[in-house]
């Protein structure tokens, strides 16, 4: 029986503490052949099984170009994520996926990519950022604008220098509140975006972050001349099955797990405000 609910068994191979309540985990399937055959596209998500506790949805933090392992960045907020934070290297988990749609990079060849992320929103964008950087030749300029509440809340700090070494790639960092030794910008992400004043010509804007940030970033982008089709985001919704059956993520006629989680702003415009 092809059991769509049955997970692959994997083990925790590495744990890294990113900030106060966010940890990154690297998993590998116990079956190496299955690991090699397993692939996904940036933007998709997986469902992590913590045996004895339950399942939860997380995005792939690493791109498919680096698929020797599967990485997730997880913030401790609820029952399952709390159990995940208790895991140690060598513990077993279950992984099922990939589910959902993906960032349509094939459509963006030759364009500039502008990533705008806030706080832990960078975790959802890490996979598309690294995928684009691993395939830099397909794209023009890549700009990553990333901000958090304070310098301590920035994720993946150790990766920034790696990213900036790639040709035609620029990282703009900001914090709502500076601190000692902070050499980068100080201010909210939407304000910095306005300051940077990127051109919408041949550019795709990919955004992710807390709802309030998205609201103002959207406004800025539209003011700058970006069309709704040029703005892409990934939506978060309570999901359970991940495969378009249980009805939890149903918003209007869309199922976020099946028709998303990646959407252009044009597709989202007609949804009720709370989304």
């Amino acid at each position, binding site marked *: *029986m*092809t*059991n*769509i*609910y*049955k*997970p692959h*068994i994997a083990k925790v191979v590495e744990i890294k503490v990113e900030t106060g309540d966010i940890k990154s985990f690297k998993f590998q399937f*116990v079956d190496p052949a299955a690991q090699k055959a397993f692939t996904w596209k940036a933007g998709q998500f997986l469902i992590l*099984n913590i*045996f*004895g*506790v*339950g*399942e*939860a949805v997380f995005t792939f933090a690493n791109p498919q170009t680096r698929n020797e392992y599967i990485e997730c960045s997880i913030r401790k*907020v*609820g*029952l*399952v*994520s709390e159990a995940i934070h208790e895991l140690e290297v060598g513990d*077993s988990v*279950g992984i099922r996926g990939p589910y959902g749609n993906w960032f349509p990079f094939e459509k963006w060849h030759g364009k500039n990519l502008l990533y705008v992320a806030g706080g832990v929103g960078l975790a959802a964008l890490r996979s598309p950022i690294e995928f684009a950087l691993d395939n830099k030749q397909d794209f023009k300029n890549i700009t990553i604008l990333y901000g958090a509440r304070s310098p301590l809340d920035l994720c993946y700090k150790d990766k920034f220098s790696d990213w900036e070494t790639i040709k035609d790639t620029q990282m703009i960092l900001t914090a709502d509140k500076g601190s000692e030794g902070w050499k980068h910008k100080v201010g909210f992400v939407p304000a910095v975006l306005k300051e940077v004043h990127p051109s919408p010509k041949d550019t795709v804007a990919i955004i992710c972050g807390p709802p309030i940030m998205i609201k103002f970033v959207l406004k800025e982008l539209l003011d700058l001349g970006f069309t709704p089709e040029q703005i892409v985001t990934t939506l*978060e*919704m*309570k999901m*359970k*099955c991940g*495969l*378009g*059956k*249980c*009805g*939890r993520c*149903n918003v*209007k*006629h869309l*199922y976020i797990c*099946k028709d998303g989680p990646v959407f252009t702003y044009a597709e989202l415009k007609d949804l*009720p405000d*709370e*989304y």
Partner: protein
Amino acid sequence: MTYLISKENINALLTSLLAAKTVYAPKKDAEETVLFGKLGSAAEWHGASLLTHTTAKDKVYLQSESLFKIKKGKDGVQIEEPAEPEEIVIFGCRPCDARGFDVINKLFNWSNFVDEYYTKRMEKTTVITISCEKPESTCFCTSFAKGGPVNETGSDLLLTPQKDGNYFAEAVSEKGKKVVSENSKLFSEAPVNALQEKADFKTAAETKIVKKLDLAAIKKLMEPAFEAAYWDTVHLPCVKCGACTYVCPTCYCFDITEKAFDNLNSERVRNWDTCMSEIFTRMAGGVNPRTDTKKRFRQRFMHKFNYHVDNFKEELCTGCGRCIKACPVSIDIRKVIEGIK
């Protein structure tokens, strides 16, 4: 393929089916509740009530289905899948119940993922339906393209009562034909006027249906009325329980949870859930887009008559009226959607 089966032979048919498989049919208990229960003998079948209190949906789409058992050991984790489901017969449901299976079959086979827990059970289920003679004031099956008191959608064998007490039997599918061929002694040739009698039966039954909704017209009004002030007041009597959801033959939303027995053993279970519940859309950390009861109430009707139609070209409803009867405050689904302007 059409036949005749006498009233007496119905009992014989039940006895014959019971001998080979588990048969679920309406049974009445001491509190006058009529539910689909396992028949121990043909005499236990309660055929007098029109509708059972809950549907037979939970015999194929279990309320709590064990997906697999998990065992943690020193060499890793073992996942134990359940045994194959057994063959069952659902006897004595109504056309609206049978059509409910047809509606949710499509969902469980949708979007590249086939839920084999459901589809395997459905494959092993034979549905024997009895046509409706006296629809109640809450029935509205004729509002649907494939609905009606003698409609055969979703049935394997359809039995329509005749004036002389016997039943006109139609084998709608291969499974239905199998029932007849395995019990051929009980079925005889249908009389020449049987089809005409069935047509008369249908007309007579349909006159008792008090309301027929224009669902296409209603759907057109739904999208523009999403933010209408109508929803602010119409939801007020609703207590946001799940009675309507759990007695519905087409509601399918579910939850997946884990039950831990001890440190090493747990079980992954799929349970029914209801969008009326406050925690349906609650995410980890407490964020919840639908805390407002008005939004949850609106979601139910929008999903059934608008969104589901967009995705599957049919409504998520069969017009059985159980939600109206089960609702503790007697909210009428027909009144709610007719009130949308």
